């Protein structure tokens, strides 16, 4: 008997390998050097991220490897760079936060890197088993990260809630995969696509499988009505973790959704865009209306991140290459602006996240004019006001949906954007137009080097992608060519 070794292209998983190495190094440094080396941790993680980004941005020939389970194409590359951007910015805003909260452990940064590896696997998955592997790697890291500030009760609650509901959602996901496998006989996306378009299949089983898969993925992307966990988890988790969770993992799930629904099950005779349309409308509306009534800035940003996933799903409902590339662009822009906004929130919140209410932004513009100005730009971008990138991102999403004839959906999305403007502008109102009633006795806020770096990246993205979007749009468009 001769066993032929499977084809393994290690260069394709270079970024993952680098991150694994960096995370393992972090763990070992953490236990062997202990206290005196703690300040090194974020920098080791950052070095890993930069090396991985360098590896990910090298040119590649689109192909699938690991026996068709891993797609090394431009789509994967786009998302890998997006995740590394999100992780890099998260590490930058974590440096001061973790030092203040005394959670500057190696494990914190190692878990961030492991979560990033999970996201990368998800984006690269050309097989449902790889999808599952990636989602689990990501989720298990996030469960722990959500509860990382162990002494805070809300953080523990967030972790437990996320873990229990996440485990339940994983069940749905796995059952969906099982049913799809049962009806098509494959887990490989390309083979499923072939079976769906050529075979005489049990459509009922396939439809139920695809719906269960949608429920599982909908949970992970926090789409309404599978969003119940989101506000509490996002509010309870440490702020940098919330920033991380709201950008990268959502993009990763959307990547999986694009691959599964637009590539694989697209040929099914059931119109799956209807499901996505319903989810998108619900997600936008509930997210926005709930955000409207929040008095806590962190919770408001949590709800608004739900609605942003809804906007991205509008692009998915367009079910066109243009729509998908708009989703990619949207998630890139969202990563830039959202992590920056959370970075400033982390600063304003002070030690132990005592001050995350909207009113804690009162008079911020008089004490820290530069930071308040940056925050204003970021929230304007989140609201979708030109010339910031948030506007361009929304514009391309809506445009693609109109071209696909989804007029009603776009109407709902535009109305929702209008609601969004109201609550995002409350930041500006509190910062510029309200005075502190009592003179504050708190020490003045000073931005750390990490935060400044993160904000520079954030500002660059928000302005560059808003004013000169062509290059990045092209980058997002090309990502879909080698599907």
């Amino acid at each position: 008997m001769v066993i032929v070794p499977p084809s393994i292209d290690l260069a394709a998983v270079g970024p993952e390998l680098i991150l694994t190495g960096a995370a393992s190094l972090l763990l070992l440094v953490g236990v062997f050097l202990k206290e005196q080396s703690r300040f090194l941790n974020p920098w080791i993680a950052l070095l890993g991220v930069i090396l991985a980004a360098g590896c990910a941005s090298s040119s590649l020939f689109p192909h699938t490897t690991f026996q068709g389970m891993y797609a090394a194409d431009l789509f994967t590359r786009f998302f890998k760079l997006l995740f590394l951007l999100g992780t890099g910015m998260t590490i930058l805003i974590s440096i001061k936060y973790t030092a203040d909260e005394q959670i500057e452990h190696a494990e914190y940064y190692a878990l961030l890197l492991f979560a990033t590896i999970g996201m990368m696997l998800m984006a690269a998955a050309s097989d449902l088993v790889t999808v599952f592997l990636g989602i689990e790697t990501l989720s298990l890291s996030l469960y722990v990260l959500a509860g990382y500030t162990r002494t805070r009760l809300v953080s523990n609650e967030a972790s437990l809630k996320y873990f229990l509901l996440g485990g339940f959602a994983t069940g749905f996901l796995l059952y969906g995969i099982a049913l799809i496998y049962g009806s098509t006989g494959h887990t490989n996306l390309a083979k499923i696509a072939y079976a769906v378009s050529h075979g005489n299949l049990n459509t009922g089983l396939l439809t139920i499988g695809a719906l269960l898969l949608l429920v599982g993925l909908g949970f992970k992307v926090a789409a309404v009505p599978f969003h119940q966990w989101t506000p509490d988890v996002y509010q309870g988790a440490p702020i940098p973790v919330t920033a991380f969770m709201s950008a990268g993992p959502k993009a990763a799930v959307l990547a999986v959704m694009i691959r599964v629904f637009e590539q694989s099950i697209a040929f099914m005779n059931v119109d799956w865009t209807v499901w996505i349309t319903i989810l998108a409308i619900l997600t936008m509306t509930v997210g926005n209306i709930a955000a409207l009534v929040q008095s806590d800035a962190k919770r408001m940003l949590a709800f608004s991140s739900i609605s942003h996933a809804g906007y991205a799903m509008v692009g998915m409902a367009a079910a066109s290459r243009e729509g998908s590339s708009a989703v990619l662009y949207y998630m890139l822009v969202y990563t830039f602006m959202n992590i920056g906004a959370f970075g400033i929130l982390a600063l304003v919140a002070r030690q132990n996240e005592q001050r995350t209410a909207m009113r804690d932004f009162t008079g911020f513009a008089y004490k820290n004019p530069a930071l308040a100005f940056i925050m204003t730009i970021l929230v304007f971008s989140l609201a979708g006001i030109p010339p910031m990138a948030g506007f361009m991102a929304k514009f391309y999403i809506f445009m693609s949906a109109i071209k696909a004839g989804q007029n009603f959906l776009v109407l709902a999305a535009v109305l929702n954007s209008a609601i969004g403007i109201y609550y995002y502008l409350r930041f500006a109102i509190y910062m510029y137009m309200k005075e502190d009633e009592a003179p504050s006795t708190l020490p003045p806020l000073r931005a750390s080097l990490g935060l400044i770096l993160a904000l520079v990246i954030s500002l660059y993205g928000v302005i560059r992608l808003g004013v000169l979007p062509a290059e990045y749009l092209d980058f997002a468009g090309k990502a879909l060519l080698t599907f």
Partner: protein
Amino acid sequence: MLNQYIPVLVMTLAACGTAAGMIIATTIIGPKREFEEKMEPFECGVSPVSDPKSRFGVRFYLVAMLFIVFDIEAVFLFPWAAVFRELGMFGLVEMLVFILVLTVGLAYVWKKGALEWE
């Protein structure tokens, strides 16, 4: 054809009825003489020393989790050992990488003190 099963059905009902009837009858008409020793849970004739619903130390779970990790290692090692010659150099290198990754984990938990009971 189903008629043939009627005796079976009757037998089943009679059996269940008898059993249930006995239990119900003894509960209702049986004499009840309760005293403290009689009401205690029977534990090999020894009077119970503590509440069985006590909490377990979290260390048990830790040990169980660590056990799973290294048990999985064994699960992968056995099939590899069975086809070691056929896989050749490729299998050896792959397995060494796998064990190396696990060793990092082992070094981590060891140094972290997770293997110490106290």
